[in-house]
């Protein structure tokens, strides 16, 4: 099985990343526990009791600055990395299969791991930006404005989907880069391929992922975004679905604002 499907451990890792995400964000009673985390404190329109952001309700960042804010950035970045693993690694499968089959078969998993590391590294800077923005948000933006911020980001992601850069990125997704067979050259080329692929994915999905993170990973939005990302990376003819995806994002923005 592993011989023909060296990508299975990658998929297992992606599936595993959903577990801590679910526990931290959507498990009843656990939302909002870590200090400064992107706790789901419930939408202002709810009955007041803290509820996890298990639907489209946007999680408002908790107030507070100082040492809590730094911890908030750290937790936020951790959640970001988990989200990238959970949502983006399945889309890495075609690249992982290419890289694995070009490698000496005794080092296929090493190649895939290095590919994934390069890929994650490309996503890290945006994660830092999002986490810092999230930690500073309570100071800069009144809580009641937060859904509006999320809606603007969602509309921005929708417009991005329709533009030329996203279309070119979607096409570039299928390109491979040279991967060497063995030794240090194989290590370097796998990291390089992962990094390049990550940059392309960032160009394609970065705005959407940022919007989901800033919204505080509400369950429905997170799952829907994951399905969008997977379909774009894995389904033939994904280009024609772009208007539908953009429409869906705009409708989501409307729901977020009107609550």
């Amino acid at each position: 099985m592993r011989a023909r499907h060296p990508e299975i451990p990658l998929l297992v890792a992606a599936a595993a990343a959903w577990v801590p995400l679910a526990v931290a964000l959507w498990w009843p009673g656990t939302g909002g526990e870590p200090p400064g985390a992107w706790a789901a404190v419930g939408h202002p329109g709810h009955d007041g009791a803290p509820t996890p952001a298990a639907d489209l309700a946007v999680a408002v960042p908790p107030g507070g600055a100082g040492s809590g804010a730094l911890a908030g950035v750290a937790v936020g970045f951790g959640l970001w990395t988990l989200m990238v693993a959970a949502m983006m690694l399945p889309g890495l499968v075609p690249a992982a299969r290419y890289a694995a089959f070009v490698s000496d078969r005794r080092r296929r998993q090493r190649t895939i791991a290095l590919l994934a590391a390069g890929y994650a590294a490309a996503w890290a800077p945006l994660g830092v930006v999002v986490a810092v923005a999230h930690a500073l948000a309570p100071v800069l933006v009144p809580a009641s404005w937060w859904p509006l911020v999320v809606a603007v980001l969602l509309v921005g992601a929708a417009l991005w989907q329709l533009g030329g850069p996203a279309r070119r990125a979607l096409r570039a997704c299928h390109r491979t880069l040279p991967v060497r067979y063995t030794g240090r050259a194989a290590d370097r080329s796998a990291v390089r391929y992962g990094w390049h692929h990550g940059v392309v994915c960032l160009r394609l999905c970065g705005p959407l992922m940022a919007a989901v993170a800033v919204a505080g990973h509400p369950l429905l939005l997170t799952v829907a975004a994951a399905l969008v990302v997977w379909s774009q990376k894995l389904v033939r003819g994904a280009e024609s679905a772009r208007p539908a995806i953009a429409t869906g994002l705009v409708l989501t923005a409307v729901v977020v604002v009107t609550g």
Partner: protein
Amino acid sequence: MSTLHQVAPDSSTAPRGRHRTAPPAYVRRDVWNLQPPGAPPHPVLSAYAAAVRALKEGPDVGHLSWTHHTQVHGMVPDPLDGLRNECQHQTWYFLPWHRVYLYHFEAICRSIIQGMPDVSDEVKDTWALPYWDYDRGPADDPARTLPLAFREPVVDGAPNPLFDDARRPGINAGNLGLGLHSTTAVAWFAEQHFTSEHMDVPTFGGPVTGFMHSDGPALGAVERTPHGDVHVVVGGPGGSMFSFERAGGDPIFWLHHANIDRLWEVWRTHVGVDPDLERLTESFEFLDVTGARRVLDWADVFDTPTLGYTYESTDVPDSVLRDRARRGIRPERPAPPIAGRGVGPDEPGDAERRAPAGPTAPPEVVAVSEAPVHLRRHGSDELDLGLGDRERRQALRATDRPADTGPERLLLVLEHITASAPPTGPYAVYAGPEQDEAAFVGTLPLFGLVESMSDAASHGLTYTFDVTEVARELRAQGRWDPASLHLSFRSFEEESGEPDQDGGEPEILVETVRLLVQGDG
């Protein structure tokens, strides 16, 4: 006002089998039989010239526009109208899409011809697009040069509509022909499967892909040679035929593609296994002879008689016979187990003909290049692919079996190809430093390279070769060292003795070369 009507030119040319009672077919004929060296233009060619002139003088858009037919193949920027900029390359849609493309173009030309007062009734009733069979005879055979009607800029005091300035000068002059390596059928004739799920597996028609304009992941053997070679040798660097966007604007394009379409029929007659019909869900939309949008399903275009045409000849190509003679193989190679033409459930044995494609396991890589290879007009890089012990044993096993008995194959993939400027081509690839027939692997035409580098394309250009037979033959001669595969390259200029064009030389790089073993799993 003429209407489209079909008349049997000769009932003996109708195919056998279930199509005996089908509508009679037009016969596409060999252009060099219509007008042999020294002969005057044949009325079929004069009628083609008249139709091309009418289209060139026609409107800017629509089915009666020459520009439209050129843009259907390639257009920048993409008009996104579902009709233009649609050509399918590096995908299993290459053959069926171009078949339907030609089908409509031919019908439109015929209807124009049928409306012309000075064309004979016989030509009006039987006119079909001719084809250019360049795989004929030795290297100096006249059939390898551009057909006579396409060479002269001026005919009878008027511009010749079949002439295109943007071809290689030697091609238009008739003193440069298509070489044996650019037209050989040996590679595609050896491919038993139309398609494969694995991009690295060479096939006749190309790998299973989505519908994609000009930028699929890998080419079928017939799309590489002769198809790509002829485009590049005729067009030359910067020429019409060397460009997706302009190729359809050279009138010889249509005779070239009629030949490629014919080779598909040759393959189906002598070699072929059609893909599973259930999987052929794609359809192709073009403007038809009335100017209306018309959709044809892939599954309906397998048999040319159902589209109303056949070919003058579907014999085994000359290059295949020559190769068998050189290697001492009896001409009467045993018939392949799954052969024959015909489509449809009413034909006996049909299910067997539609065997699923090829091995299911991906081929295994046994060696990968460590650094890019530079291709140059003179003095290209050479390359040694080193193999470890285990990989060497795998490679040897793949070449151990006697020919034609097992599915194990030794494959060569060249990918991540780039050029710093519009390239020249083709480049011949040899296994070993000695560049002779036994060591000849195939060519890299580089048709589509520029397009594949655009950010509108989703794949680079990738060539796949079956080198099992080459390795076997070199092994028998003591010239094959399984510890390392040595590759060398020779440019078109070196192969043909053509002078270099002016100006600088683009940097052409092949970043990855892989050797693979395809098992029987």
